[in-house]
């Protein structure tokens, strides 16, 4: 009973703060149009950020998610800003991955999973039946927890999706594969064995191969579901470096267990708890001055 009440409190608090955020966003939009610069109620250093952030890449509205009869997400509202890294944190089983897996509708592989609500990608609801799934997934790439190389050569792993979505001749294909492997910082390690089976690479290399495979399609959004939880610290550092490099080009959403990682790589952070989004905001602010008690308790390690 006690926990239930707590959840309700979190929920009502959450939706209120998000509404405030939205109102704030609209305000800045209007101001930009009028070319009037008024000091924001937050500190002035935030102003620059908010101006470049004004385009929302993904807007989640009242998202509920079900595993059969079990509801895993409640009324999630969230905005993912273009060309920024947004981190999703929270204790195990809070719905972080579930939430992320709606963005490319990968959950539909399983018959017992269902999403209700709206998720807008550039203003278009991706949960609409009319959405072209192949195109959605080309635009929204995903990196998973465990590296999953396809049972084929390193080259073919990257070329496979490319050939499917784009018509390229051999030299264009080779150039694109090379470019993607360079971007994912794997090229120097594999350039001499592109024909080798991808399974022979190390775990960290395999994960960077999966990133190369995803970015080869030139997606607009890159979803990362705990991309470093199955690999060693050195490889993790490489991937975090990579995220840093990629964020100029891609909108990145990363689910992570590791709060230090969220603090290191992300610009914005959403804190999930029991299927609710408790708090969302700029990462540095969230980690230094969280607005909600639950967030503070989690990031200071009192639970989770």
């Amino acid at each position, binding site marked *: 009973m006690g926990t239930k009440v707590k959840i309700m409190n979190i929920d009502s608090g959450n939706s209120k703060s998000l509404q405030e955020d939205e109102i704030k966003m609209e305000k800045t939009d209007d101001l930009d149009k009028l070319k009037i610069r008024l000091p924001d109620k937050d500190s002035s250093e935030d102003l620059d950020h908010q101006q470049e952030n004004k385009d929302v890449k993904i807007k989640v509205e009242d998202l509920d998610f079900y595993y059969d009869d079990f509801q895993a997400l409640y009324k999630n509202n969230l905005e993912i800003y273009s060309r920024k890294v947004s981190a999703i944190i929270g204790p195990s089983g809070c719905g972080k991955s579930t939430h992320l897996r709606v963005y490319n509708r990968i959950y539909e592989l399983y018959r017992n999973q269902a999403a209700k609500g709206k998720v807008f990608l550039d203003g278009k609801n991706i949960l609409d039946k009319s959405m072209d799934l192949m195109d959605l997934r080309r635009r929204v790439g995903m990196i998973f927890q465990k590296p999953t190389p*396809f049972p084929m050569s390193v080259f073919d792993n990257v070329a496979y999706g490319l050939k499917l979505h784009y018509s390229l001749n051999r030299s264009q294909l080779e150039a694109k594969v090379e470019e993607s492997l360079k971007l994912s910082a794997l090229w120097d390690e594999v350039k001499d064995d592109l024909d080798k089976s991808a399974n022979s690479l190390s775990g960290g290399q395999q994960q960077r191969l999966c990133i190369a495979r995803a970015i080869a399609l030139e997606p607009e959004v890159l979803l990362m579901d705990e991309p470093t939880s199955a690999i060693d610290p050195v490889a993790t550092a490489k991937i975090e470096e990579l995220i840093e490099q990629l964020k100029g080009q891609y909108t990145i959403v990363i689910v992570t267990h590791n709060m230090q990682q969220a603090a290191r790589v992300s610009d914005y952070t959403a804190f999930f708890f029991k299927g609710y989004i408790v708090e969302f905001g700029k990462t540095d602010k969230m980690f230094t001055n969280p607005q909600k008690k639950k967030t503070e308790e989690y990031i200071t390690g009192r639970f989770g």
Partner: protein
Amino acid sequence: MKKRSPLTRLVIDKIIKSLSIIAAIAGILILLIIIKDIFFKGINAIGFDFFTNNMRPPGVAGGGVKNAIYGTLMITLVSTLIGVPVGMMAGVYLSEYGRNTRFGKIIRFSLNIMMGIPSIIIGIFFFSIMIIPLGHGSGYVGAFALSVIMIPIITKTTEEMLKLTPDSLRESALALGIPKWKMIISILFRSSKSGLLTGILLAVARVSGETAPLIFTARYSQYWPDDLNRETANLTMTIYNYAGQPFDSMVETAWGAALLVMGAVLLLTIISRFIVSHGN
């Protein structure tokens, strides 16, 4: 408290252990005896003539089973051409589309029943629906009957093998915008290809040794099978017919055919074992 003596426990342990060892040895021993028996009785029949000549009329010396070898190969080939695609597609349905569905459960249950149907009943079934209207034996109908035996075996192995591939592989393929059918063929089939191939080989091995479905369908012929839509010579029916004949040469030919069939099945099984252990 008086402690129980460990003696009874140890004795029972020894007895159970010995009994199971004896049972295991008996299994191997019977196999070895069968192989030895067929080998020594059949090896004399196998020579150059055995593979290059057709059957001769009863009582006429010489002759081989070239026509029966060809017939068996053709019947097995046709049944494989039907059984493999149908079986694999059904397996794909069960694993990738109908998993956890009511319809999938019904199919899986029916397949289990189908596997338990005695093969002679499948033979009689095809006899009544196809051979009677046709008015004569047919190698094709024999192949249909064999493919019916093959389909549930291949469906089951395909389903099992595909289920062994992790969901993360499916997800990462679909997340690249790869359509599901393509994901199944180019990713799942590829990652489980040794298992799938093994399943096919074992199913082929299983049906190539079947006799009962052919008694009423392909029947038997001592001529070269020009037309598979007529009575078709085949090895297992040759064994069945020749073994009971009064002529020694025919009985010997039956042993030779038995050795050939057994050798082929053994070879297929060994190849499939090899693929399993050296796969991928």
